[in-house]
């Protein structure tokens, strides 16, 4: 069942380009959906239009069958968690959580029950009468979450809720959010610029850049089969090599890299808009972790540049005729890469993905 539908949603600020450019999206009940993109890509503006804080320049927003495009935020029944948390500094923790219920004139006894169960859900029991500025960042974040959830929203909107937390707390909260979602089943739209957050939490992700959606898909699809050059480069560590299509067969396509190396790529390893015609230029995406060092003769040779140890993997830069190529090898590998060494890289056609270059 579709809970939210965006139709040609567009936002233009004064004298500028479209911040959000004709976005179409539909989100089903119970989904954990993420808008992912670099800062300024329009993801927050989209979320704020869904909440009703901004008016779209054109397009429609539908909650189920109801057109809410120009409804004020207080008539939308959404829960919103702000990056700054936006807790009411003059109210206690419990009064903050109770705010939405007081507005709805929920009877006192029910209100108290719902507030304490909401606080229990986010593990803040016993902090009811504390002032919000006495809480840690993580606790404030959870008050914001409880305040948004206690009104039983049709839609929970989260605007970079973890960006003010330190790294360890962020991972804990990530897990907590995920489990909260599986118990409440509330349809959630999550905005972030952090791809690992998006990957680990979402059912589906929409990748945005410059106001446009580049791809909508599950985390696997986004990672394995990027639809555009932008998605390929934004997610994970990806090398983009230029190539020319040589021959096309029923099952596969042969592309030639700039140095003449030929690769046979299965036809399904390509974005939908890639034109397969001999002589056509295409982009070959190679994930850093899918490359291996080899002794094979049919390979790309280069000289090892800087090697960075990051714990689980060593990240190396190999200077080749095709340019600098990033390679990640497991730290457990027996051969230890050393700067200045001459190495050969094995490139497998079944591990690459073709995208349109321009």
């Amino acid at each position, binding site marked *: 069942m579709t809970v939210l539908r965006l139709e040609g949603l567009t936002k233009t600020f004064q004298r500028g380009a479209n911040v959000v450019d004709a976005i179409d999206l539909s989100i089903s009940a119970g989904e954990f959906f993420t808008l992912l993109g670099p800062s300024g890509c329009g993801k927050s503006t989209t979320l704020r239009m869904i*909440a009703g804080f901004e008016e779209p320049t054109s397009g429609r927003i539908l909650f189920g069958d109801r057109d809410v495009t120009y409804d004020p935020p207080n008539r939308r029944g959404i829960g919103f968690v702000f*990056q700054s948390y936006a807790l*009411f500094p*003059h109210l206690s923790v419990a009064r903050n959580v109770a*705010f*939405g219920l007081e*507005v709805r004139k929920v009877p006192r006894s029910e209100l108290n029950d719902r507030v304490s169960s909401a606080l229990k859900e986010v593990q803040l029991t016993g902090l009811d009468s504390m002032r919000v500025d006495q809480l840690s960042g993580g606790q404030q974040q959870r008050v914001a979450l409880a305040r948004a959830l206690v009104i039983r929203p049709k839609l929970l909107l989260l605007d970079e809720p973890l960006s003010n937390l330190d790294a360890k707390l962020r991972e804990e909260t990530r897990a907590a959010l995920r489990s909260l979602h599986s118990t409440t089943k509330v349809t959630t739209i999550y905005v972030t610029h952090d791809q690992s957050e998006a990957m680990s939490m979402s059912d589906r992700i929409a990748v945005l850049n410059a106001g446009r959606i580049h791809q909508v898909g599950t985390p696997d699809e986004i990672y394995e089969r990027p639809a555009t050059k932008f998605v390929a480069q934004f997610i994970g560590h990806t090398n983009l090599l230029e190539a020319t299509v040589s021959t096309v067969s029923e099952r596969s396509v042969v592309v030639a890299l700039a140095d003449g190396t030929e690769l046979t790529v299965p036809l399904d390893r390509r974005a939908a808009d890639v034109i397969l015609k001999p002589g056509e230029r295409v982009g070959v995406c190679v994930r850093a972790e899918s490359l291996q060092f080899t002794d094979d003769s049919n390979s790309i040779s280069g000289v090892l540049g800087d090697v960075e140890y990051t714990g689980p993997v060593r990240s190396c830069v190999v200077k080749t005729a095709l340019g600098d190529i990033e390679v990640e090898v497991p730290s457990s590998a027996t051969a230890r890469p050393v700067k200045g060494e001459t190495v050969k890289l094995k490139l497998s056609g079944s591990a690459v993905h073709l995208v349109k270059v321009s």
Partner: protein
Amino acid sequence: MSIWRKRITTGAVFVFLGLVLWGYVVGPMVATFRESVSNPEGGLTEYVRFFDFGRSAQGESMLGSLVISFLSVITAGLAGVFLAVLLQRWEFPLRRVCQVLVLVPIALPPLMGVEAFVLLYGIGGTFPQILGQLFNTSPTTFALNGFAGVLLVHTLTMYPYFYLSVSAALSQSDDALEEAAYSLGASRVQTWTRVILPMLTPAIVAGALLTFMSSMASYTAPLLFGVDKVMTSQIVIAKTNGDLRFASVVSVMLAIISVVFLILLQTYEQRTIYRTQSKGGARKRQQITRPAAKAVTFAIAAASTVFVILPIAMIFILAFSVNGSWRTSPLPSQYTTQNFLNMFKDPKSWEAIINSLQMSAIAVVGTIVLGVISAYAIGRKRFRGRTVIDIAMMLPWALPGTVVAINLITAFATPSAFSFGKVLVGTFSIVPLAYFVRFSPLVFRSTAAALAQLDPGIEEAARSLGATWWYSFRRVVLPLLYRGIAAGALLAFVNSVGEFVATILIYTPRYRPLSIAINDELYLANYGTAASFGVLQVLLVVIVLIITRRLEHQNSWQKAS
């Protein structure tokens, strides 16, 4: 559809603000301009005479105002920067006490405060008498009069503009910056000239612009020290002689100069505000260890402090003196508490106090309504003409009281829609109207400042939780802003109670406010009575300052969240 309702409400607010500002601020300015060119022969040529320094009344008064203002900037600047550096950078005995006392001039009441200077340093004043007796000559040899007296008053009342901005800049500056300069090989002198002073420049420029504007607007000091070749005095003299046209000409010119300085101040503040990026802790002060240096520093600080608080001390002494008991001695010879009792017993005194309180209270209610609505509209809404409203709101703050008074006189000498078809000149209501116009910017500014600190997300959070705009305004925005509003309103109230410059031009003898009562008592040389009123004003300022301080301290949670 709700989108239309929203636009209509925003439009209605905009129209309301536009009407109020046009009716009481901009419109009256236009009326004054019309009056100034009403002479069929003169017209705009009246304005050309301003640049005929020394020969026309216009040119002479403009030159006088400009010269006094430039000199005031220099003397007040030297005093303010000196005190700021002394008290912020060095540690010596009683530093904290001095730090509090140098701000005392802020509590100096407008009219009685200036009179205190006259009674201390002017003809027949305390110091000329002491020095005269000491050197066995006529006291008048040492008396300050005219120009020098005005300059002294300006210096000692306006140095806080420099002191406050420079000490704020000094206390915010990061030790690490200086240490960085030293570590890069800069000497002490180089560190000061290349790092510290450039960082203080914005504070000094802001102080200079404020001082210049205040000096141009100053009327009481020239009045009491007998200087009439300044623009404000010319306006009042012309108005008193019934020459409203000439008063208007000078008013318009003075308004233009003030507005230019307002624009300079605002653009400058927007362009250069240095903020240290680092968090930093409390600044370390330089400890003075050598006993001789310690004694000298202490002596300098103590002397400056005493000098600065003398006028207020003088008001307190005079308030207990018997009227007419002061002739040829440094201080009055007889003392009493009768002045304070008379305040309540004498119906004329009591009436003046009540009049002032009433007029100020009415004005403050108006300033709150206008200040809060305009601050909220400008801070939170996007509409065309927003900048225009912003400028118009701050305009009366830049205009000298004399000019505001002339504007209201020219606008409301005839019935107008904004006075509901009545003539306001010569009535009770024009006085609170003048206070309202003059002091609305105070509420506007402090509300806008409080609003700027408020995360817009807080209001959005309330809306997303189902609150209507009005509910979230009442239950979230107002409780979070009320401290800022209260601080501004209290300031507006104190300023209204002390207001003299505009009042003298527009009051009607039937409703005599406090500042006019003081002026009348001074005219009769009843220094005791006048000073007891002054003490009342000082106490009011002190109470308000204490309350405001309290409010600011409670405010800290706003920043924490």
